């Protein structure tokens, strides 16, 4: 062939919908797929030289079982890596400071996951507020409404508190507005009036103390682990409804169970858990809570769009040496 060797790009995990787009990378790169299925095999595969020359990697959600936490040890095994493209909105399995130290830029998928995730949050919010879970369960056992039937509440005029006003939080706010809810939020920093869509910026304690419904929409990192725990439940309104579509560990699951059992928290709607796929038995036992197994973005349309976006970033990394959607912690890395 005699031409310049194409840069290598690495698929860690799997691609389901955009296989054609991944294969099309062949015109600018040499795509390699990781064969290993666990961390020690991955490190061995790297040591054998298979990943030499890899400049960009596509990291799928399921690749956690392959590499575990994406940290210095993993990064050191692919010394030529410059660009890590995370196929997801959340990127907590990636140690960003380790990446920055190694000179590796990281992007996630902003915006595209906003609709599917906020739709899930609204579904859980309605389900919890309206107390649908107990009677949906009794219907399936042949009792229709059943003796455990409880009256729910309407969302109109209730105060929704959003913890984390990123793309997903803002979409939850907008959709909740269509149901007549009043929205307030706490965020690392206050947003412009326009961006906040009229939602009121409040302090963290005020959010806890005055919200009828609390929706967790913040990323998981060292600062946000267990940001909602026993002390926070104590500050919340009696009969509060809690919804979590962010990451399980932002909330202390055992403390939530206690707050549900005591009646402080009337109901909860959850898509994420501290130790997925394990769920606190106190939640399984509780008919009042509505539980989904982390399906926040699991639609054909969103999964395809996410894969296409991430593959485009891999292509952009190879062709232009830059990424779209760099994680906020690395904003400084693109400054000349």
């Amino acid at each position, binding site marked *: 062939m005699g031409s310049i060797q194409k840069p290598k790009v690495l698929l860690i995990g799997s691609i389901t919908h955009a296989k054609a787009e991944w294969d099309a990378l062949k015109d600018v790169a040499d795509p390699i797929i990781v064969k290993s299925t666990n961390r020690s095999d991955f490190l061995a595969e790297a040591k054998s030289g298979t990943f030499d020359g890899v400049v960009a990697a596509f990291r799928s959600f399921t690749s956690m079982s392959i590499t575990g936490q994406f940290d210095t040890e993993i990064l050191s095994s692919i010394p030529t890596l410059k660009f890590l493209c995370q196929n997801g909105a959340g990127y907590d399995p990636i140690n960003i400071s380790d990446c920055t130290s190694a000179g590796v830029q990281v992007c996630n998928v902003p915006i595209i996951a906003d*609709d599917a995730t906020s*739709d899930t949050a609204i*579904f859980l919010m309605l389900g919890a507020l*309206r107390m649908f879970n107990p009677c949906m369960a009794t219907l399936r056992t042949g009792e229709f409404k059943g003796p455990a039937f409880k009256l729910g509440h309407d969302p109109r005029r209730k105060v929704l508190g959003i913890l984390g006003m990123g793309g997903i939080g803002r979409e939850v706010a907008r959709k909740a507005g269509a149901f007549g809810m009043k929205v307030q939020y706490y965020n690392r920093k206050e947003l412009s009036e326009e961006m906040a869509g009229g939602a009121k910026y409040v302090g963290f304690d005020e959010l806890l103390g005055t919200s009828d419904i609390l929706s967790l929409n913040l990323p998981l990192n060292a600062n946000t682990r267990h940001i909602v725990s026993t002390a926070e439940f104590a500050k919340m309104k009696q009969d509060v409804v809690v919804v979590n579509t962010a990451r399980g560990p932002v909330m202390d699951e055992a403390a939530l169970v206690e707050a549900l059992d005591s009646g402080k928290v009337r109901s909860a709607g959850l898509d994420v858990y501290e130790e997925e796929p394990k769920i606190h038995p106190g939640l399984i036992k509780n008919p009042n809570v509505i539980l*989904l*197994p982390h*399906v926040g973005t699991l639609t054909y349309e969103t999964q395809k769009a996410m894969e296409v976006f991430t593959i485009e970033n891999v292509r952009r990394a190879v062709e232009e040496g830059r990424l779209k959607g760099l994680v906020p912690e690395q904003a400084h890395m693109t400054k000349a």
Partner: protein
Amino acid sequence: MAKPTVLLLGEIDHAHKEWNALSSIAELIEPKARSREEFIQECKSGAFDKVSVAYRTFQSVAITGLIDEELVAILPTGLKFLAHNGAGYDQIDVHACTKHDIRVSNVPTAVDDATADVNMFLILGALRGFNTSMMALRNGHWKGSPPPPLGHDPQGKVLGILGMGGIGRNLMKKAAAFGMTTQYYNRSPLSEELSGGAKYVTFDELLATSDVLSLNLPLNKQTRHIISTKEFEKMKKGVVIVNTARGAVMDEDALVKALEKGTVWSCGLDVFEEEPKVHPGLVANPNVMLVPHMGTWTVETQTKMENWCIDNVRSAVEKGVLKSPVGEQKDL
């Protein structure tokens, strides 16, 4: 002059103060009867001869049975007003009431939000395929083995509303927030202002071009089984159907067959043909979302509905007219 008598059929759960306040303008009585047979006997015994206004709940059908020609014929002739606590009034034969000079009211508007909310919950639940996941989780299988097929986003989908009354129009606004475009079929097209820009289409076009079909029409002789085998055949393959109207507007058995064939990808139902009985083909199907007629069951909406119905009673007693007569009697 003696106070008029008002008959309570069913229970007041929330608006006790407002109900009791009626005692300053009327005698409030309740039946002793606990079955239709007993109720008919009690009527014939003359116990209700002084009654001029009745307030009835959906559940009171357990006492009186349907308010049909047989029952209306033995009601005291002095009973001139029947205030029904509910939006749907298919339990009442309005034609028979008109014949016997009884005016009927229902409760519109107060039900719109709560019903549209459960409707939207069911659209999301069915389109996203959430029920299979919820059941897998509760059975200890996390996402399920194998995990179910991926769901679909509402954004960009066409929502077809059959029946653009208060509930349908309320639903349209909420569905718009999820990026859905609405088209509708209705007895007659609405003004641009009322329809909010939704496209008016024929019944057949609604069936053929909607990605999600929502049933929001009243149950009456014309609408019983308006959705049946023939209609399923006209729908888009993979359509999602949601029903918060009345079970009998849709042929439940035909729906089960359409689900088995794959013509209907999923459905979300709050109502069933023979409540509390649910077709076993639905109960056994994890891919459908089923709620046991919870449409207006919130503290706030139940309170609003009772108050609205009590206002109808008060209006009948004080002014001799109902506040919200049913459509069929509006011109009387």
